């Protein structure tokens, strides 16, 4: 099978299996179009499936994502490739694209895997679990996370020592180390890019001490600590396992900050931080939560009320810019900040600091196109050529953008943008232009 290529036909290729890509794929599929959904990770569901609860309703993210994910994975018109990446997209003519997809071997036959986890138990290897943002280990033979879709094991071949323990215990003999990289040639009529966003890496701001001080974590790590499938089974600080009781949020970490190359606002951090603060007050009733902010941007439906609710629950809001974070011997952290209301420098001690990291562009998409130019905006998000009237259009006719690939947005806006992209794609499929 080495190097074999398959030729396949679809009406649409959707790149990215997060909420936006999933919604776009569903819209197209339920109108009778054949869709290929290509996802880089081992599971669809994007970042949303990893969240704890969502603002402003405090629904658990899993409760509203999993049914959607399962609808997508069961839809007869949708084919899903996980662990797969686009290597090239060529536009031949209107309604005629050639897409090359590279599918990495999972070393597990998904159809035969029952997710019994015996391989996971047998595997001797332990490496940091990327789905828990490295706060805990996972095996080299592993199920990505409990609500993953497909819910099937995978082998992390880079960490695998090829001991064969997993194969020995697998009751369905679904582990298969003979799998190879597959290159697939796909003909399609339209392409939707839903490649999502990347999180800001706070290592870029050394004065916050992330990486050095273990009790300084990112908001995504806290999201995991609060999720039902959490790494520690309760909220603990990773520095020494203490239950924190004085927690600080540093908003605009990597957003609205030209010094790190990202002058724009990430649109979601205020709200997810307020949400986490509310959840923390619920989980740790004795805890003190302080949010250091420049402006609170609770602009969406029900958001301002949610912000007021957090204030009512006793979350402290301090208008202040954080200058420097330093660590004390006991792992506690001292925040030096400018209190804007009083116009003076102050210091405050906290035992855990959460950096509310911002949204950065995922630049992968522009590399897909070798012939045509996929234009990016000044911030490297996909450029919307007719932003006000046809927000899903890109510089390549027939290629549409959905969700955060075009800029920061929250879940409802991603869903609407996906609705918009699929609607434009259907028009394009019907009218061929």
């Amino acid at each position: 099978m080495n190097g074999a290529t398959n030729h396949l036909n679809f009406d649409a290729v959707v790149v990215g299996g997060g909420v936006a890509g999933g919604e776009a794929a569903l819209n197209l599929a339920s109108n009778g179009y054949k869709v290929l959904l290509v996802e880089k990770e081992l599971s669809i569901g994007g970042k949303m499936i990893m969240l704890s609860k969502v603002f402003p309703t405090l629904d658990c993210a899993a409760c509203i994502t999993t049914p959607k994910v399962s609808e997508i994975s069961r839809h007869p018109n949708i084919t899903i490739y996980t662990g797969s990446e686009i290597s090239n997209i060529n536009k031949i003519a209107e309604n005629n694209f050639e897409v090359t997809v590279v599918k990495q071997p999972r070393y597990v036959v998904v159809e035969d895997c029952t997710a019994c986890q015996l391989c996971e138990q047998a595997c001797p290897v332990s490496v940091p679990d990327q789905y828990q943002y490295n706060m805990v280990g996972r095996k080299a033979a592993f199920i990505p996370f409990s609500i993953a879709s497909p819910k099937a094991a995978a082998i992390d071949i880079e960490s695998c020592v090829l001991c064969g323990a997993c194969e020995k215990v697998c009751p369905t003999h679904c582990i298969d180390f003979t799998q190879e990289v597959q290159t697939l040639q796909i003909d399609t009529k339209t392409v939707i890019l839903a490649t999502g966003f990347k999180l800001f890496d706070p290592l870029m701001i050394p004065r916050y001490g992330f990486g050095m001080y273990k009790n300084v974590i990112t908001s995504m790590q806290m999201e995991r600590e609060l999720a039902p499938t959490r790494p520690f089974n309760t909220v603990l600080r990773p520095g020494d396992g203490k239950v924190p009781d004085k927690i600080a949020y540093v908003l605009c970490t990597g957003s609205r900050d030209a010094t790190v190359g990202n002058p724009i606002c990430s649109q979601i951090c205020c709200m997810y931080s307020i949400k986490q603060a509310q959840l923390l007050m619920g989980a740790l009733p004795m805890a003190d939560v302080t949010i250091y902010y420049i402006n609170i941007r609770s602009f969406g439906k029900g958001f301002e009320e949610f912000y007021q609710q957090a204030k009512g629950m006793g979350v402290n809001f301090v208008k202040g810019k954080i200058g420097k974070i330093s660590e004390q011997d006991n792992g506690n952290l001292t925040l030096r900040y400018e209190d804007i209301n009083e116009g003076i420098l102050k210091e405050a001690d906290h035992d855990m600091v959460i950096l509310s990291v911002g949204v950065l562009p995922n630049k992968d998409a522009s590399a897909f196109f070798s012939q045509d130019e996929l234009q990016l905006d000044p911030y490297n998000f996909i450029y919307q050529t007719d932003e006000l009237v046809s927000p899903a259009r890109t510089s390549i006719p027939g290629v549409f953008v959905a969700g955060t690939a075009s800029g920061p947005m929250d879940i409802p806006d991603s869903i609407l943008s996906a609705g918009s992209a699929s609607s434009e794609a259907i028009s394009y499929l019907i009218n061929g232009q």
Partner: protein
Amino acid sequence: MKKKLGVYVCHCGGNISDYVDVEKVKKAIEDEGGVYLAKTTMFACSDSNQKDMVDDIKRDDLNGIVVASCSPKLHLTTFRNVSERADLNKYNYVHANIREQDSWAHSNDKEGATEKAIRIVKAAIARARLAEPLVPNKIVAQKAVAVIGAGVAGMKAAIALSDMDCPVYLIERSPFIGGRVAQWGKLFTSNQPGNELVEGLYNKLINRKNITIFTNAEVTSNAGSIGDFKLKVRVTPRYFSGLCSDDQLDKAIEACPVEVADEFNFNITKRKAIYRNTFSQYPQTGVIDMINCTRCGKCEAICDKIDLSQKEEVLDLQVGSVLMATGFDPYTPEAGEYGYQETNRVVTLPQFARMIEMSDKKLMHNGKEVKNIAYIYCVGSRQPEGGNTYCSRYCCTSAIHTSVEVKKKFPKVYNYHFTRGIRTYGKQEQLYAESLKQGDIYLQGDEDNLPEVVVQEKKTLVKVNDILSAGRAIEVEADLVVLVTGMVPRADNSVGSLFKLPKGRDNFFNEIHIKLRTVETFIDGVTIAGSCQSPKNVMESVNSALAAAAKSYSYVSKGELETEPVIAEVDEALCTWCDACSTACPFDAISMSNDKEKAIAVINNAVCKGCGMCLPVCPTDALNLIAYSNKEIESMIDALAVD
């Protein structure tokens, strides 16, 4: 048939199990009559659990299922689909709500919540024991959509539907289409003027054969429901039988003796009772406003295409779905709110936008050149007491964009922004940076420290204790105070009541689920788009319009829809035909039949909506609602009542 039931109690990843002892619930119900297997599950809705359920049903020949989890509004369909995939009739599935109506509502009383969960699940089991397989009714879906409101959202939705090969009726209440965007100048971020944007959309609209546009038209009644809405649309005439020449129209307008405030310019100018579109409104023809017209006939004498004898028409439309895009009103400040109406030096942001559009060279107001402009933010939004608690989302960006544009057009002006914290989210941040760069001054108050407007005879002062400079009291003498007003729901949103559309706490139309189902409403077949759902900017409105179009299309595209088989049925033995039920029925679904030995009531299955209004009025208890029979309800009451 003896029931073999499967019962699944969901942890909901802690949402339920943090307050309800789900293992205890499982133990308490596993010996109930009919229960064959009982399980707990971390996420009942997860794919793997759904698979397990299908396997269980097939392996053990289960003929009834109960899932105790969240509200049925979220997952009833999910589990009905699971049943269907396992070849079990989906009406043998019963949902028990132990989250919204138990674990969350009683999170302060774990014992009480657990006790309640046990009874709720037992009641659901009792119901599942009696559940019968049912077949959904099929109805014909009219392949046409009515789009109500022809602002940017409505226009864009109409075009999208037309592209999907779906006939559209675009119904606009005012004489011109274009909505609020037509009233705006340059738009952020493209800097395209609102009128050009509207023109582009209008040109597309009139080229589509399957779009019918009605202006001056209002939906006055609605009968029917998803698949077949029967609308009555009242069309007020324009009183033009054809086009007058520009010259003639100008003369006719000049001749008109009636002058009224021009709502297009937010009443800062006047217009006649006969008037033409501004260049951003379509169709490009005149109209007579009969509410103010005195029928003097002066205009008729100038152009023979003017015809005051035209009569209003009422049209009947049949559509499968309705897409609401009725938009918003700008908030109108109360008299005296920040000096509004106390001096003409205080205007609203929309009025100011019109002023800029209408002035060139110098920005003049009341014969005086405007130099210092003070913008007061959050007027009508984020109100600390009563009123509107929400943020209107568009206004920070809009005000800053206006201040940037005004500075470009009139470089001598100074902008002072009295904010409550700037919310230029996302890429709009660049605009805030641009405004700072051009030298705009930003001052900030908060809900306990709002700016104050002092109106004096010759001048107007705006004061605030500025929290950006440690609470220093700062005052600005403003030639013009611009109140940055938020969005409020349309003052007359009666068309929403025609469809019984639910409204949220903020009085905007409410969606089913804010996260994942933003354009659908609780009223089947009716979708919402644009700022009638919540404040939105142009791009956000367009995205929601396209999403709503796709959703509305999905209701009508197949030409057929399934509806719930929950309808009334008559126990012929008990019925003595007394007419009480047919009088009670709001849908004329019940009539008398003489086919049998005696006169009895018969139900028209296609028309019955399953409300049950006929049930309590029957003197012989001969009527029942399928799935809500006496037996089913009373057995649930029994299960809930057990001590």
